[in-house]
């Protein structure tokens, strides 16, 4: 907490919003604000399908899987909005339900692990949780390492696998991911089948 007055202002703003919207803040949101160690995450798009906690969770989880470095990460590339579009429009009803249930399990798992909601944790802790989920998912799906045995972790890991799939798909088909992190040529012009990696641009082709 560096700026108490700012925090108070934000709290005040939230209170006003709640009044305007005529809705009460959820207990967990209030807990997060009261703890106040991390700013309420901002959304880069207006969710139409996810509710606000879901949208924030998807946003920060995708940003943890592919963070901003010298190049933009998942959030900068619009991946959270992509994920919402995929889940709300492309997924079948059954997959949508699985995704929502899985997300709830994953949120709860993170809470149990860290004693706070994922979205209010610092980046280091978020990364640690994502790594734990990634390992659990790989163990479960690929038999690499020790698979989780409790239902909540299993469900959280399954959700994470889908979440990671959506995140990398959204990111590496985005302009930032394809052209800045990987390399992309709209019109290669020629084909060279067997050249040194360095002469082929030195990086993975996006397509």
């Amino acid at each position: 907490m560096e700026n108490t007055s700012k925090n108070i202002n934000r709290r005040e703003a939230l209170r006003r919003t709640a009044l305007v919207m005529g809705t009460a803040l959820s207990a967990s949101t209030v807990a997060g604000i009261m703890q106040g160690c991390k700013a309420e995450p901002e959304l880069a798009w207006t969710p139409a399908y996810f509710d606000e906690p879901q949208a924030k969770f998807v946003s920060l989880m995708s940003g943890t899987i592919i963070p901003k470095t010298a190049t933009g990460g998942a959030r900068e590339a619009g991946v959270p909005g992509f994920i919402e579009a995929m889940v709300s429009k492309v997924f079948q009803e059954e997959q949508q339900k699985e995704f929502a249930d899985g997300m709830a399990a994953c949120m709860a798992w993170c809470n149990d692990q860290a004693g706070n909601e994922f979205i209010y944790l610092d980046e280091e802790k978020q990364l640690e949780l994502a790594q734990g989920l990634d390992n659990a998912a790989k163990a479960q799906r690929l038999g690499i390492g020790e698979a989780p045995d409790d239902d909540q972790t299993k469900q959280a890991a399954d959700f994470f696998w889908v979440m990671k799939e959506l995140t990398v798909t959204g990111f590496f088909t985005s302009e930032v991911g394809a052209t800045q992190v990987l390399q992309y040529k709209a019109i290669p012009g020629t084909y060279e089948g067997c050249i040194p990696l360095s002469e082929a641009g030195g990086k993975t082709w996006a397509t």
Partner: protein
Amino acid sequence: MNLNIKAKEQQTYDAIVVGTGISGGWAAKELTEKGLKTLVLERGRMVEHLKDYPTMNKAPWELPYGDRLPAEEAKDYYVQNRTGYTVRQSTKHFWIKDTEHPYTEVKRFDWIRGYHVGGRSLMWGRQSYRLSDMDFEANLKDGVAVDWPVRYSDLSPWYDYVESFIGVQGQNEGLPQLPDGKFLPAMEMNCVEKHVKESIAKNFDDRILTMGRSANLSQNHNGRSRCNYRNLCTRGCPFGAYFSTQSSTMPAAVATGNMTLRPHSIVTEVLYDKEKGKATGVRILDAETGETMEFYAKIVFLNASALGSTWILLNSTSDVFPDGMGNGSGELGHNLMDHHFRVGASGNIDGFEDRYYSGRRPSGIYVPRFRNVNEQRTDYIRGFGYQGGASREGWQRSVAELGVGRQLKEEVTTPGEWRMGLTGFGECLPYHENHVKLTTDKVDKFGLPTFVIDCEFKENELTMRKDMMQSAVDILEASGAKNIQTYDNIGGPGLGIHEMGTARMGRDPKTSVLNKWNQLHEVPNVFVTDGAAMTSAGCQNPSLTYMALTARAADFAVNELKRNNL
């Protein structure tokens, strides 16, 4: 009265071509270039070269939903979607909506279609292989179905002719089972494909690996630009660098001034004059207005696709032809074939970590048929070829192989392992009981009868598949591959999108529908030169053979017209 005569004159041409896909475009080009005023009928909408390729220049991030279809929209494509690759944001406008074109599956049959000018010539895989005498003689030697009425020597000059016009890149290999052709320089193989080619040469004396022969231009050709290695062919090519009706045959037909193209024209039957014993033209249903019209001509070419052409003939009934035009043999609608595929193996190849490629080549490699060529197997007849290729794994490996966070982002920039894949394409025998028939129990939105399709792969195909998988493993093992994975996911017939047969060629009118010139035995001025004509399937991708049969039949038809024989 005068008005009627004039109207009839206006609806009279020298020739009518039904369909504008691979073979229809060829019929249009050949007939118009030989001076025939030709009406070309297409059941679907107009697709103009370049103008109607809305996605041809779209980058990945310009396609919504990562190029996938929303679930609600995908419902319309419940059969087309079975391929797993055809219906995308970038290509959906070229595939029919199954909700609009229903049929009945007695057993699963995946009928994958595009109804528009250019047909599947726009979305085809472009693989272009000749059949050989091993194929043309196969039925006779095996005592299967009926003998082809032609041999390789009949088609060879026509293969030369069509290859020279469309442009096929590839390598001559001097194989009796896969004849050489008139090829543009072959596209290059990548490091691992070259390695597997060498490994095969070292370890096997019955098989080779060659560049897949495809109708992609490796150099400028006939006024068309060479390939620019985007590998986005199925969206329509801004360079006209692969063969399609639009890029190749249609411009040639238009240039003659002899072609009238009429989209939205569903041909419902071929008209027959009992006195003359000939067809007089066709009846159409205008898909936009619902109006019924008739057009007349001296000859009719049916190029509506194997099942499309057979549908028209089965629907052309009269007292002379109660079971469909030209169906005296009872074989019309029978002997439906497709290639069976989706079986093979892939594996990682080490040792080329410092090598990569640049550009996206639009064709893979090919391992021509090597079974039942010299030695005869006892477990199955005929054979298969492999299509495939090697590439380095890309970002798709992130989920299973890479971690998360900054680490993922760094690791993904180095290309992953080299992986070589081989997919078998096998011959399917012509079985009389694999057939289609018309029903009025289910009609389409125009009230027209629909197909009941009853087709399955049988023991010869299923036995062959075991070898298709194992031989792929053998090749990969001989190439030092690791982590070899096999697969066999047969799906339904039709998935190969190589429907063949149902109006087969043959020597005897009692057992076949078409003669050696692709004329209906019973109605000599009606020609069928698409996949319906196939007497057997071979294991090669068949489109090039349709082109050669079409050019040959058109030449014959025009000569016969000149001699007043038609």
